[in-house]
Structures are given as structure tokens and as C-alpha cells.
């Protein structure tokens, strides 16, 4: 899995590309989050548009990072989830945990609103 980091109006957007499973990728992803928190960046959008699929270990990684961000007083939201991924989030009730937005603007705006 490849991860690209961008910043949009003070919000960090992580573009994921590939498949979200356990293994070595998981560690990279975790360390990236720890780094962001250390820098005080805790409004995070995870872009799943180019993630073809995810397994339950991959969900675990997302949840781990979600918990890290929340403990630091921030939030993690997802965008670009395919129908396939949406239905996994629904079945596991993770749609109740992290918000899923259709597009980047809405996701970034959700943080701006929180700040006001």
C-alpha cells in the first residue's frame, strides 16, 4: 500500500493506494499516525478512493489509528469508500465509529465547523 500525505486548510489528507491488510504496511501506517500526533496534527482525512479492498486486520489498523487520534483530542474521518468497503463498515458497525464522507470538501468542512 502506498500512502501520500497532503494538507488542505489545516487538515491532513492521507491518500491510500492499494489494499489495506495487516503485515508490514500496518506498521508504516501506525508510525505515520504517531508522527502526525507528535506534530500536533490531529484532524485527519483518510482517502480510501484507491483502496480496492480491506480485510478485518486492515479495519483493525484503521481503528487503532482512530483511537490514537481521538485520545489526542482529534478526529479521523474517511472519504472515497467504495460500495464494497461501505458495506463492510456497515456490517461491522464501524460506520457508527468513524464518519464517512462522499468527498474531500465535505470532510474538510466538517473539521472547520468543529473548530468554529
Amino acid at each position: 500500500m502506498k500512502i501520500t500525505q497532503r494538507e488542505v486548510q489545516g487538515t491532513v489528507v492521507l491518500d491510500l493506494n492499494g489494499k489495506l491488510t495487516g503485515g508490514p504496511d500496518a506498521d508504516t501506517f501506525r508510525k505515520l499516525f504517531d508522527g502526525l500526533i507528535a506534530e500536533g496534527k490531529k484532524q485527519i482525512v483518510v482517502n480510501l478512493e484507491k483502496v480496492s479492498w480491506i480485510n478485518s486486520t486492515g479495519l483493525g489498523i484503521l481503528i487503532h489509528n482512530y483511537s490514537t487520534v481521538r485520545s489526542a483530542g482529534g478526529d479521523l474521518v474517511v472519504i472515497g469508500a467504495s460500495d464494497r468497503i461501505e458495506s463492510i463498515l456497515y456490517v461491522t458497525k464501524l460506520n457508527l465509529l468513524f464518519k464517512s464522507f462522499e468527498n474531500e470538501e465535505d470532510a474538510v468542512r466538517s473539521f472547520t465547523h468543529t473548530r468554529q
Partner: protein
Amino acid sequence: MVKTNQVEQMTLTIPSDLKYLGAVDAAVQDLARELLFSQDAVNDLGTALIEACSNAIEHGNKFSPDKRVTISLRFQDGTLKAAVKDEGRGFDFEKAMNEDPDPDPTSERGRGILIMRAFTDGLSFSYDGGLVCELTKLRDGSPSPE
């Protein structure tokens, strides 16, 4: 055209490495589409099968490079059965099947069986020199979740 009563079987054998899961997913998706499953059913089957293979690689074979996972896909009478077999010691699947999933929404594990159940029309385990996880998907089965 699919003839009734004709058994169609395809087998895949992969190393205990998550990197092969995409190939398994791609193969089962193409096959199920060819067998006229709906796109939703195709996605569901891929999702459940990836889960079964992840468990076989992780819990069954413990990522051992000497152990392999075998996936058999059989189609008959409108039903696709996918059997995933590993070379591990198995587990108390009777117990696991009857347990409620962990209610803690931030728990990082324990959603595999829930997912396999939700996205198929049947899930069963058996032991035969390795754990066998069998998933059943009906072509004209229940609509997929959501």
C-alpha cells in the same frame, strides 16, 4: 451457458503471504461474474473469501513460508462453495461460532467471523489435516448487506 448438475471446480494454492490475496479475490470475482452472479454478490463473495484466507494465513499457517493455503471453488445448481484449507492446528470453531462478537466498537480484532457470516449464505468449519472454512453463496440468494 451453465448446465444444471454440472460440477465446475477451480483450485488455487498460495503461499502464506497476504500479497496473494488480491489474486484470489480477482479470480473469484471474475469467475462469479462469469457464472452470472450479481455485482453485489461478487463483491460479497470476494470480501468473505479474503477474510477466510487472511485467517488461514495468519492464525492457521502463522505466516510460515513452508505452509500453503488451498482455495477450492465449486459451482453447482446455482450455488458457489468456496473451501479454504490451511495447514494449521485449527481452533474451537464450535465455540467461536456461538460467541457474540466483541461489543467494544474500538476493539481491533475479532470481526472476521462476523464478516464471513454477513456476506455469505452459509459458513461452516471442519478439520481435515488443517482447518477447512467453507463459504456458501447462492446466485439468487439474499440481497447483500446495506
